[in-house]
């Protein structure tokens, strides 16, 4: 599904943010990426969802070497990925319904399908009464659910969530992970980035840990050191 080999990333002449990162996400897997703020989580995610190119190393997505892929192939690969951004990145002038419909419209889905599926999904996310609201009128938690709905509406092969539990209390955070687990059960590979190591440890999913640009497979010992 996803394989990173010896990835490095630096901006201009600045110090390297990622150092020889290698990791592998298997089909249908559920992963946490933990690490403190500024450790390089978001940069690593950006490389995986093709918003950034690595300075060196190999990124393979869905058996495609992205460094050798052309612009059209990158677009095709992006359509297989759902992203929940840390700041949600909802389009302010569009309604909740149109925000969630965006990936479907971009993919050229028929309007009939959009009219049926989007309200159903938003209902499943508990937003059935908010379809025609603009994002600015929603609470933070509601905006987050809209962002998740937009990320999963096209049933992506890979779902990436950047700090989805960062701004919510423990109970909501737990509920969100349960939502991601349900999506995972449908066959989507899930990667969740969080700074909260203790929170991630509550689940039995595989964890990668990033510290000052170096990624390692997290272990109990490493967690203890972190604490």
């Amino acid at each position, binding site marked *: 599904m996803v394989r990173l080999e010896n990835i490095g990333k630096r901006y201009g002449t600045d110090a390297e943010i990622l150092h020889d990162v290698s990791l592998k996400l298997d089909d249908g897997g559920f992963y946490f990426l933990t690490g403190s703020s500024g450790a390089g989580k978001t940069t690593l995610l950006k490389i995986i*969802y*093709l*918003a*950034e*190119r690595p300075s060196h190393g190999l990124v393979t997505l869905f058996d495609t070497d992205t460094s050798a892929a052309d*612009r*059209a192939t990158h*677009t*095709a690969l*992006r*359509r297989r990925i759902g*992203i929940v951004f840390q700041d949600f*990145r909802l*389009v*302010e*002038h*569009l*309604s909740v*319904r*149109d925000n969630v419909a*965006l*990936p479907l*419209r*971009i*993919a*050229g889905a028929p*309007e009939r399908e959009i009219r049926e599926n989007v309200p159903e999904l938003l209902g499943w996310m508990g937003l059935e009464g908010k379809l*025609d*609201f*603009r994002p600015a*009128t929603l609470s933070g938690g509601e905006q987050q659910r809209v962002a998740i709905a*937009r990320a999963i509406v096209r049933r992506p092969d890979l779902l990436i969530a950047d700090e989805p539990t960062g701004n919510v209390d423990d109970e909501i955070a737990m509920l969100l992970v349960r939502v991601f687990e349900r999506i995972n059960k449908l066959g989507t590979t899930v990667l969740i980035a969080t700074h909260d190591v203790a929170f991630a440890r509550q689940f039995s999913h595989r964890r990668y840990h990033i510290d000052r640009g170096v990624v390692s497979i997290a272990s109990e010992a490493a967690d203890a050191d972190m604490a």
Partner: protein
Amino acid sequence: MIGTLNLPAQFRLDLPFQQDASGRFLPWIIALMVYLAAMGGIGLIWLSDALNQWNASLASSLTLQVPADVSQPRIEMALGALKQTKGVVSARLLQPEETSKLLQPWLGNSVAVATLPLPHLVDIRIDPQATIDYTTLRQQLDSIVPNAQLDNNRSWLGTVRDFAVRIEGVITAGVIAVTALIVAIIIFAARIGLAIHRSVIELLHLLGARDAYIARQFQVHALSLGLRGGVIGGAAAALTVMVLGPAGRMLELPMPINTHGLLDWRIWLLIVVVGLAAGGIAMATARITVLRQLARMP
């Protein structure tokens, strides 16, 4: 809460163009360009009509100027010679009051034209298809009335034609300049739009949008601005033609603006074509500009 508008997918805009300042001033600038281009085109139509009218009337007429002191019998002889010339349909001596009327625009009513030593004018109608030997005719007339001048109007018409060609050149250059200006304005607006909406464009890319999908958003927006400008500019041009008609009649302008006005279907066709062209040019320019810019993005 906002309502949903079920627009066809190709006209749906994900980018918030309605917040752009360009949406407020661009239609007016394009309207001005459309107005200038339409009036230029209408000017070309009128100029062409005027030339054709003059050409048609002058190609079938000649003027003979006989010095003022020539006697009536000699004039009659000259008229007889003209009438016998092959290709001449009629030859008629203008009455003094007709000559006075012709001079009125230059001399006014106050001058006693009858007291002036004006030449006698003979209006000659010819068959435009006939070939007249002017050299022989001039020699023949000169033998009857020395110093008579036979004017076939061709040198004057040639001067007018040369002038008209220059005017046409100026108008065409103006229309080209206006088109180039619309292109430049749209390129500028598209680049500003790309900068303003960069974050949403990046988002669309990350959601899997192709460059053509994003370019289509700018295309639709530019088409809308162009057509709005086209409607405003076209309406202003139609209004101008409407006002120029009565004004032309009032001022007795020697151009066909006081004859057809808005009843001329070519004026309507021109206004519609220029208005649509503004939309088309704006749309094509936006598409090319945006696709080029997007190709540089990661």
